[in-house]
């Protein structure tokens, strides 16, 4: 089994977090560069408090983390979850490699 497999509730939080357009956009913004909540709030037509709530949902899903900088809260992307996708693709690549050598063996045995 995958060593650090996410539990069901982790998946629920992750999918819930990404099921909203604004939250997906926030993830994209902060993956590129950490941003303060007030900068983020300036991007969307919603209150500071509403943006803060979105960030909290993303934080619970492990997609972003907050950091205090002076008087401001900075939001950063947490690329671990996205790296996970890359790692899973790596595993699938290994399966494809296994299939390729099995096909090769079959072709050699039965040309």
């Amino acid at each position, binding site marked *: *089994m*995958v060593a650090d*497999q*996410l539990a069901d509730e982790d*998946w629920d939080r*992750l*999918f819930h977090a990404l099921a909203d357009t604004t939250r997906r956009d926030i993830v994209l913004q902060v993956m590129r560069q950490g941003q303060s909540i007030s900068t983020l709030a300036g991007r969307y037509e919603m209150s500071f408090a509403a943006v803060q709530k979105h960030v909290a949902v993303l934080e619970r899903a492990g997609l972003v983390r907050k950091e205090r900088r002076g008087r401001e809260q900075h939001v950063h992307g947490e690329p671990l979850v*996205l790296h*996970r*996708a*890359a790692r*899973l*693709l*790596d*595993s*699938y*690549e*290994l*399966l*494809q*490699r*296994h*299939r*390729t*050598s*099995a*096909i*090769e063996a*079959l*072709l050699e045995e*039965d*040309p």
Partner: protein
Amino acid sequence: MTVISVERDADALTLTFVAEFAAPVERVWRVWEDPRQLERWWGPPTWPATFERFDLEPSGGASYFMTGPDGEKARGWWRFIAVEAPHRLEFEDGFADEAGTPSEAMPTTTAVVTLEAIEAGTRMTTVSRFASLEQLEQLTAMGMEEGMRLAMGQIDALL
């Protein structure tokens, strides 16, 4: 090594895999067309596949199970979207429950296989598109990582 290139796109959850075989296109097509040959390479190591139904035609389908090292069974199904012998095959691959009924809850993988004649034989390009991380997780969790480590270890031992 016959694996020519591997391209992964983590955002689009797509893996493009290109391999070459020293056999004509018609011969490589048979490893897809004949379920008995398919069974010899489709399942992950330690999870051999058995195809129970196999209708290779557009809008036809297949059902299969893979048997794990402890005798546990994982069932799956295919739905063929395009069958253009011997050059192109497109199908959906999904999980099924114990009775073989496609699992509604789990998204499917779409695979597009292209075979082209080259001087050395055949180039096979497989593009696998996954619907979600959750599904990739399921696919790779199925004894696969363990089996892969084993297989890679064997390859390393040869080198």
